[in-house]
Every structure is written in C-alpha cells, then in structure tokens.
C-alpha cells in the first residue's frame, strides 16, 4: 500500500472535490440537470474511492456500516415525512404550496427536502451495496 504514493495523494486531493461536486449537483438540481439520485451516487463514489485506495477497513472506520444502513432508511422517512408535513399543514400529500405563504417558496423547500431524502437513501444504499460486495472475501 505504501508504495502507491501518487494514488494515495491523488485520491486525497480528489475526494473533497468529489463530495463538493455531489453537493453542487444536489443543490443545482433545481435549476439544471442533477438532483438527489445523481448527487447520492457521486457522494457515495467519494467513499468508494476512499475504500479502494485506503482499504475497506479504513473506509468502515470513516463511514461505519451501521450509519450507512441508517441513512438508507432515513432518506425514505425524510421523503415521505415531507409529504406528511404538507398534509399536517392542510395541503395534500407532497403539496408543497402548503409549506410557505408564497407558493414559490413552498415548492422550493418541498423539492429541496424531498431531494435531500433521495440523496441520503441513494448514498446509503450505494455504499451498503459496495460494502456487501467488497466484504465478501475478507469475512
């Protein structure tokens, strides 16, 4: 592992940008191509790269499997929970207009919240799948 200095340093330089790009794709999803699914996959790719270069053990220290599994479930709850909140505020299911006085803001917040749920679940599922496959030989 130690002789692959370029790989290690290169990965270290790239990973923050990958994660940042994921967030760009997430938040720019309102105006351009992108959104929760793509952002979740890119975000997960950052951790997959880390695991490939630094080993599965280190990756599991940084992002424990338990956290990843909770993420997979949590995102669904954020998504569906947004719908429940709009219902509690007097609208229909996922009727974002109910989220704010100005329907424009309501739609914006609603989409933001739903896409955040998608990001969390997609990230969790992607990393879980990677852990499940990568961990097969060692365990």
């Amino acid at each position, binding site marked *: 592992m130690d002789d692959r200095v370029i790989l290690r340093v290169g990965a270290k330089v790239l990973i923050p940008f990958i994660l940042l790009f994921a967030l760009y794709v997430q938040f720019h999803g309102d105006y351009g191509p992108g959104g929760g699914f793509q952002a979740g996959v890119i975000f997960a790719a950052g951790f997959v790269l880390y695991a490939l270069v630094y080993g599965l053990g280190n990756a599991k220290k940084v992002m424990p499997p338990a956290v990843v*599994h*909770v993420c*997979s*479930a*949590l995102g*669904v*709850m954020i998504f*569906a*929970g947004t*719908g*429940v909140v709009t*219902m509690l505020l007097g*609208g*229909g*299911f*996922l*009727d*974002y*207009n109910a989220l704010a006085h100005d329907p424009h803001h309501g739609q914006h917040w609603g989409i933001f919240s739903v896409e955040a749920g998608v990001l969390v679940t997609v990230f969790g599922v992607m990393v879980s799948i990677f852990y499940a496959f990568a961990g097969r030989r060692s365990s």
Partner: protein
Amino acid sequence: MRENLPVLQVVVPLLAAPLAFLVRRPRLSWLVALGAAFWAFFAALSLLTGVLASGAIGYEIGGWEPPWGIEYRIDELSAWVLVIVSGIAAVVLPFARASVEREIERDRIPLFYTALILCMTGLLGIAATGDVFNVFVFLEISSLSAYGLIAMGQNRRALTSSYQYLIMGSVGATFIVIGIGLMYSMTGTLNMADLAERLPAVAASRTIPVAFAFLAVGVSLKLALFPLHLWLPNAYTYAPSAVTAFIASTATKVAVYMLLRFFFTVFGAAFSFEVMHLDRILMPLALVAIVAMSLVAINQENGKRLLAYSSVAQIGYMVLGISLASVLGVAAGVLHLFNHALMKGSLFMAMGCVMYRVGSCRVEAMAGLGKTMPFTMAAFVVGGLSLIGVPLTVGFISKWYLVQAALEKGMWGIAAVVLLGSLLALAYVWKVVEVAYFRPPPDGPGVREAPLSLLIPTWVLVAANLWFGIDAKTTAGVALRAARMLLGAGS
C-alpha cells in the same frame, strides 16, 4: 385526515417500513409492522364503506390535477383488493412473531419486517393508484421486497427459488413497462381514465395491439397463469412460513387485479374481448391450469408445495371467471380473489404451525398430527374443505357463482371442469388428511400443539372461511358491483 385517506393508506406503511428497521429490536420492529398492518386494514375498511356509500374517490398527489399529476383512484374493485391485502397482513403479522423468531436469525428480524411492510406497501399502492406508471413502480417495490423475503427461508434452496422468481418476475415487470411505454408513445398519457378515453382513437394502429400483448404476457407471468407459473411452487415452498401465508394470499391476487384494471378499465372490455379475443387465450389456459395443476398437486410430497400447485389451479378459477367476460363471470373471479385469500391464508398458516412444531412440511412428517396437533389439523381440514368447495365454506360460494356464470353462457363443459377440479382438490387434501389422521404418530418424543399465538390468527381466518361461506351477501354484493363497474365503464 379523511380526505387524505387514499394516500395515507399507502404512506403510513411506507413510513413504517424504514421505522421498523431503525428501531433495531426484533420485538419493537414487529410492533411497528403490526401497527402499520392494522392501520392499513382500518383505512381500507373505511375506504370500502366510503366507496360503497358514495362512489369512487379520487386523490391528487402533490396537488397536481390529473391527467398531468399522479392520481390515486379508489373504486369498488380497488377498495376490495385493499381490504384483502391489508386484512391478510393484519392476520399474518400476529402469526409472524413466534413463527419468525423460530425461522429467521435474530439480527435479521428487523430487516424481515421492513421487507414485509414494504411488500404490503407495494401491493396496496398497486391497488390504490390510478396511474399506470405508478402501478409499475409499486409492482417493483412489492416484487423486490418479496424476492428478499423468500430468500430468507431456512432451506438453502430458498436462495435459488428466490433467484428464479427474480428472473421471471423481472421479465414480467419488463414486459409490463414495455406495454405501458408503448401506450404512452401513442397517447401521451399515463392516467388510467385518460388512457381509456384516448386509446380507442389509436386502437387501429399496430402499436396498441403490441402493447396489449406485452401487458397480457407480463401480467400473466406475475399472476402465475399456467404455463407461466414455474417460479411459484419453489418460491412458496422455501419461503418462511409467514411469508408464504402472506404472499400466497395477496401477491397473485393483486396481479389478477392488474389484469382486470388493464383489460377492463384501460383497454375496455369491448377491445380486449371482441377485438383482441383475450378470452380465447385465457380460457383454455385457465382450464388446463385447473386440471393439470390439481393433478400435479396430488403427486407432491411436501405440504407447502402441494398447496402451491393448488394455488396455480385456483388462479385458474379466477382467470376462468374473468375470461367469461360477463358480469356474473367477472364477479365470480373477483369474489374468488377474496375467498381464495381466506382459504390459502388459513391453509398456509396451518402449515406454518406444523413447521413450528415439526420442523418440516413433508407430508410423511405429518403422520399422527391429527392426534398430537388437533387444532392445527382441524384448521387444515376446514381450509381444505373450503378449497374443495363444500357448502358452508367460501369455496362453495366461489364455485357456485362460477358454475352459474358458465351455465348462463351455455358452457356446460366449463361447469364440468370446475366440478372435476373440486374432485381433484378432494384428492390432494385427502392425501394430507389421511397421513395426519389415519397413520400412527412416529415413536419418540411427542409433538405438542402449536402455541396460541399461532393458532388464534389461523383460526381467525378459518372462522372467516365459514362466516363468509354462510353469509356471502356482503362479499358477493361487492363483487357484483365491482364487476358491473368494470364492464359498464370500460366499454
């Protein structure tokens, strides 16, 4: 709350599924799942009473008007299917606690309940939605979770049978989405009611008959119509007991619901049966399924596999009723959806009791169980009588309507096949009964009766078999109304 009921029917279980995983403790996640199932049953019952009182209920997701937005639409048929799915879930979940603790590793139990609730969510969603693409999405939710559930069986062959189901189920789902895509390309809409309006104008093209064919094959795969049933026997045999009881009484029923929705509501009965002649394919296959699969069931050595083949035969009855394309025939099919869920649910739960105490469902292993597990085997006998179609059970009601529908069209041969199917059912039910009651129990430590937590849910379904067999006014009334709605509005 009340106006949001159509969507809460699906959303509450959808929220309960991740929650069942997040609580992590087996008992707690069981409680969450139980709560979701009871809620769904309550919601389905109030939707059904609402629909019966004041007609179909529509719901716009996200405030987007149909046909642009996704619409949930609950009419007599969908409310009926919602009641079947959630009712079976509400009976299977109390049964599941003890059975699952015995059959599934402790640290996987929360995942198990998550998958079970997701599967129920998917099945409820298919019934609730009025959007064909949404049907596909929920179909995938229910199927993927069902593959996972089946793979959790104790026997290692559960993995291969789950894989087999995955391949066949994915082919079916792909065919369905191809059919939906072709319809979309011709009409530009995915809303069922809107499709029904726009399809006649383009029905003369080559595309729409192709879409029709893809949908027919895809849905037939999902509902295990002979000869596309090959995934079913293994999946039912090796799945955990509670899963078999749930999936056998709901998944194929929801697939039959899709058949009715696509070919009566979307395409319309006139196009499906007078232009495309769907009945010319469905009827012979249904008749072969009834006879051939009952014969195969007689030769099975495993109780669950025997009942699985019997399920393929019973699906034949439903499809037979539908293929008659008359109000009485469709009503017989819709009625049998409910009645078959009751009988197969109670039979597979009785098998679950046997599995819990004996550890095997082989017919040979059931020797003497009539003495050692009297209540379990009595439940099996009543369920079996219902399967045969003895008066005072729900099976009789289904066959009565089916025979009437056949005679109404002057098809004496079909009525004869239905009665032949009953005789064959008698043969395979007798096979189990004979071993259980007329063979001495093997020497060694005796087997005790199953615990009450398994017996009570089983007997609740057995009692329902008798109750709705004696008083079929409600069930037959709803089935007739659903059939009239399907044939009236669709043509």
